[in-house]
């Protein structure tokens, strides 16, 4: 399931040497037939165009196959003219015949070019449209997949399905399919033409065939082994580089530069040893095939020459035959590579279809409502839920929250705190029981509407590549600059933003190292503040912010959330002392509920948790 995205070589995109795919490892599809059928379904709306393409391919190739023969006629006439001169018998070259033949030849060339152009231009439109549709479909699919999918699938895997795999399909559709048809037509057509000229020469040419095939398969197999090993070593090397670069500061602090460089050199050298062999072995295929082609050329030149000298064949036909034998060699080697390319294309399509077949989030119930004037009253009644069917994370949980209350959720890691958020926002649905928002079962509220009620700041901050301003305004499209500044000030991040060179227009990048985790978190807090939700959820939101800043943020939040329900999940107990109610979750259950004082008086799990900090603090 989890293939690392960078590991797989992407075919196509201007790849490199000779026929694509020869000698490279090939991925095999699981269900070739079914996938091809389904892929064909995408092409069905274009069937008339594709028919036209087919006609164009056949027509274009017929012209291509005919032209050497026509040119050969010209040569024969010229040869006759020459012989006539040599022997002093003939009347020289028959220019009228030559003119006629050249006219035919010109027409054949023009026809070939025209039909080639037609087939390609139609094909490219069809494939690009198909691929565009396919990508759109994947995108729509992604927005309908439940969180469960995202939580259980490596991002790299999904990413490579959307981009690499779709790309592979497009490349192959566009090029290989046409090539395949062309190759088959050429082989058949050329064989027929050759047979009409001389069965004996044809036999000689076909005799070369096993040689070509042997070369393509034997060497390709060797080279695949090398490439596979190279892929492995490359993986090792990438891993090492990734590790050393991520730990750059530690490498420096501990003076490990030499050590990591030595380790790198070892793998690097191994890569070289294997890499050049892979390259070399793959690189021998083309010259060898060219050699076989030349061999055929020589054989025909000699045999044709002998026949022609005896008058058994015309010179023009010998020339035509030479061209045919060249035309013949190409598609044979191409077929071998096309088979590989098509196979990996089908495998790619299969992966895309797998994604498209993932189970979707159930649609909104018919008659699902939109809440107007939401108050933020939340109730959980007998809620049971588990990520795996037999492992309940929450068991029979009951909870009533009045509008405006601040609820703190505490408990050891893995106790099920994040789960509550997943359920409240319907990222996951409960197994049994129900959750009510303002008295309505949340499954009867439109998902989109329900989620806008919540503002949340998650543990892993998510910012996209764009300006800081755009990132803050994400929760409220069309917010004015002043509103954005206000939100930033309320989140105590305004000052920091203004110390950046471009201020609010600073572009955040994926690996923006100039911005600390804490600051990123403050930005997401500003975003939540601006969104102005009915219910606020802070999921350990302030864990990377120091307690003092955290307290300031809490003050701002407290002001902001007057009359709003809010949930705070935190490890640090000092941050939740302000809560109206504290939920203590352990082992999937709410084990205690109450205010700080009540819980302390209870002397239970919470008191122990609190004391362990206080004791450690004063020790």
């Amino acid at each position, binding site marked *: 399931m989890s293939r690392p995205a960078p590991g797989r070589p992407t075919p196509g995109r201007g790849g490199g040497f000779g026929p694509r795919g020869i000698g490279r490892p090939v991925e095999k599809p699981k269900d070739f037939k079914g996938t091809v059928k389904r892929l064909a379904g995408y092409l069905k709306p274009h069937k008339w165009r594709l028919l036209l393409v087919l006609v164009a391919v056949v027509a274009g190739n017929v012209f291509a196959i005919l032209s050497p023969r026509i040119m050969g006629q010209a040569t024969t006439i010229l040869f006759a*003219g020459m012989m006539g001169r040599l022997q002093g018998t003939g009347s020289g070259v028959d220019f009228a015949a030559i003119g006629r033949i050249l006219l035919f030849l010109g027409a054949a060339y023009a026809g070939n070019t025209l039909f080639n152009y037609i087939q390609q231009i139609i094909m490219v439109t069809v494939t690009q449209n198909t691929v565009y549709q396919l990508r759109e479909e994947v*995108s729509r699919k992604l927005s309908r997949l439940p969180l469960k999918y995202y939580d259980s699938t490596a991002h790299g895997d999904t990413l490579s399905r959307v981009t690499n795999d779709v790309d592979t399909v497009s490349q192959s559709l566009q090029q290989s399919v046409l090539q395949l048809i062309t190759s088959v037509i050429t082989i058949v057509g050329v064989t027929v033409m050759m047979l009409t000229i001389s069965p004996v020469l044809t036999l000689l040419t076909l005799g070369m065939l096993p040689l070509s095939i042997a070369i393509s398969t034997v060497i390709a197999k060797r080279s695949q082994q090398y490439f596979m090993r190279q892929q492995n070593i490359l993986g090792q090397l990438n891993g090492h580089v990734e590790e050393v*670069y991520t730990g750059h*500061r530690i490498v*420096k602090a501990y003076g490990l530069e030499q050590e990591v460089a030595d380790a790198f050199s070892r793998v690097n050298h191994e890569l070289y040893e294997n890499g050049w062999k892979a390259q070399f072995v793959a690189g021998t295929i083309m*010259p060898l095939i060219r050699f076989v082609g030349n061999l055929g050329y020589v054989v025909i030149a000699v045999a044709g020459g002998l026949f022609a000298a005896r008058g058994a064949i015309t010179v023009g036909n010998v*020339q035509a035959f030479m061209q045919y034998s060249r035309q013949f060699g190409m598609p044979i080697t191409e077929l071998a590579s096309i088979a590989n390319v098509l196979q990996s294309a089908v495998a790619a399509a299969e992966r895309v279809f797998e994604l498209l077949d993932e189970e979707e989030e159930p649609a909104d119930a018919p008659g699902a409502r939109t809440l107007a004037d939401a108050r933020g009253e939340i109730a959980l009644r007998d809620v049971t839920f588990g990520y795996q069917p037999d492992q309940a994370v929450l068991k029979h949980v009951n909870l009533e929250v009045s509008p405006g209350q601040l609820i703190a959720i505490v408990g050891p890691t893995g106790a099920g705190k994040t789960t509550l958020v997943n359920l409240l926002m319907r990222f996951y649905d409960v197994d049994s029981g129900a959750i009510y928002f303002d008295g309505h079962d949340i499954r009867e509220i439109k998902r989109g*509407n329900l989620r806008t009620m919540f503002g949340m700041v998650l543990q892993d901050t998510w910012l996209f590549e764009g300006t800081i301003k755009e990132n803050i305004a994400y929760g409220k499209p069309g917010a004015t600059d002043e509103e954005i500044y206000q939100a930033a000030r309320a989140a105590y991040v305004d000052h920091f933003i203004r110390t950046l060179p471009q201020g609010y227009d600073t572009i955040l990048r994926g690996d923006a190292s100039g911005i600390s985790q804490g*600051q990123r978190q*403050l930005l997401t807090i500003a975003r939540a503040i601006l969104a102005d939700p009915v219910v606020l959820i802070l999921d350990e939101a302030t864990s990377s912010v120091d307690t003092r800043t955290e307290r300031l943020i809490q003050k701002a939040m407290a002001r902001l959330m007057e009359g709003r329900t809010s949930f705070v999940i935190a490890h640090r107990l000092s941050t939740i002392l302000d809560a109206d109610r504290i939920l203590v979750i352990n082992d999937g259950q709410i084990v205690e509920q109450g205010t700080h004082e009540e819980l302390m008086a209870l002397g239970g799990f919470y008191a122990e948790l609190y004391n362990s900090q206080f004791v450690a603090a004063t020790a």
Partner: protein
Amino acid sequence: MWKLRQYLRPYLLTVAVVSGLVFLEVLATLRLPDLMSRIVDEGIARGNLGLIWRTGAVMLLVALAGVACSLVGSYLASRASGAFGRDLRLGVFSRVGEFAPRDFDQFGAASLITRTTNDVQQVQQMFHMSMRMAMRAPLMAVGGVLMVVRKDAQLALILLALIPIMAALVALTIARGVPLFKGLQEKLDRLNLVVREQLMGVRVIRAFNREGDEQARFSRANRDLTQTALKVSRLMITLMPLLGLLINLTNIVIIWFAARRIDAGLMQVGNLMAFLQYTMQTFMAVMMLSMIFVNLPRASASAQRLAEVLDTEPSIKDPLQPKQVEQARGVVCFDQVTFSYPGAEKPVLSEISFTARPGEVIAIIGGTGSGKSTILELLLRFHDPDSGRITLDGVDIRELSQRDLRARIGYVPQQAVLFSGTIESNIRHGKGEATDPEVREAARIAQALEFITEREAGFAGEVAQGGTNLSGGQKQRLSIARALVRRPQIYLLDDSFSALDYRTDARLRQELAQAAKEATVIVVAQRVSTIMHAQQILVLEAGRIVGQGTHEELLQECSVYQEIVASQFGKEAVS
């Protein structure tokens, strides 16, 4: 590519030899039609069967010589390009190793990883391709033209007249195609970025109900990509057949003129046949060349990115003659140190002064972004101050070699970073020559012994890349053990206990205090409770020291400190 010439230089000889071999191979290829024309003109025309056989044998030898040259060339080119890639990769890797964190951050880890791996691969491929194919094309063109001229100079004029047209078409393809291909790559990267962001941010997107907008964003990128891809394909589809047609029409013209010359007895048919093949081969070579050019932008973008890395001089370098500290004790002194990150409006640290002596614990406390960690990084010489100086035992640390300086420091970062290997090898990163008992002792003090011995393989237990098979707390403890094993004069602890539970935390602090009794300890902290007993506490706010003293002193006179304490213990603790 040019920027990387230093790495190409060792292989210039190979390039020359490969070029020679390619040339020989081209000669062989061109010789075949020539020989064939003899078969026609002298063998067939005169019925000389012996000549046909003999010529055939020569052709076979020529073909063999051709393939031999080609194979040897391929061998040499593969070795050379492989070695070039290896050297370049090592060069980039070593250069990154010399980078100061600021140089490093300028690129970012992800980008540097791509550069070291993919970009090197791209450039290496291009080098290989240039040797094998780019050489072949012009040689073939030149050779072809020469042969044509030799065969029939007058007829060759037609070819010479057509070459400029051909060249113009190819130039047009390159001029239009190169930017398009570049654009295609950018559009593809853009689509990748959008998808990656959507995958990572799915919760936020759904929470803010922005699925629609995100889909529109994807559609825009998708449409953009599709349109560019269509443009690229249409260009290629239009130009390639046009070139083909041009070649074919040339054939017709050649035959027509050749017919007249043959009729006049100035030319032989075999020569015409050879002539036609030369023309074809010349044009094919030129077309091949244009394909290589299409691939060039990608490789040149990669080369550009590599050159950027290689041309970046490490901003921190050792002095030419580093000083040795005579009596190393571990007295750290910051003297009016001011530092700003490059490009920032305000300094992150202003006029920081303090002295830390052996046997003392100096604690630094303050808000996010107040510059606590930066103080530690300055002492490690990850950055150099804008003004002021930092001394170690009276010597400015800029006058020491970085190696000597850092060898005296045990640094424990905020985020524990481990390397793949074993638990033991990770601890030993602190001191390569540590004895087994030393490693064990360090693990014991770091409170790691228990979980290590519980594991089946003990100290030989495997650590996965990024330490993913260990919990946060375990990683942190190993990271502390790594610092302990060196028995350094100076400990730098950057909020290093955050992932530990309270009991482990307390025990570890106790043991650590014992082990580091004679060392200088500088510790960055979030929780007041953990640093209350420090000899000196620095309170940082917006890069300035706003309080300096013991816990009790600060409680009396520092309002920021009071606020911090109040936020953690409640009001009553302050009064």
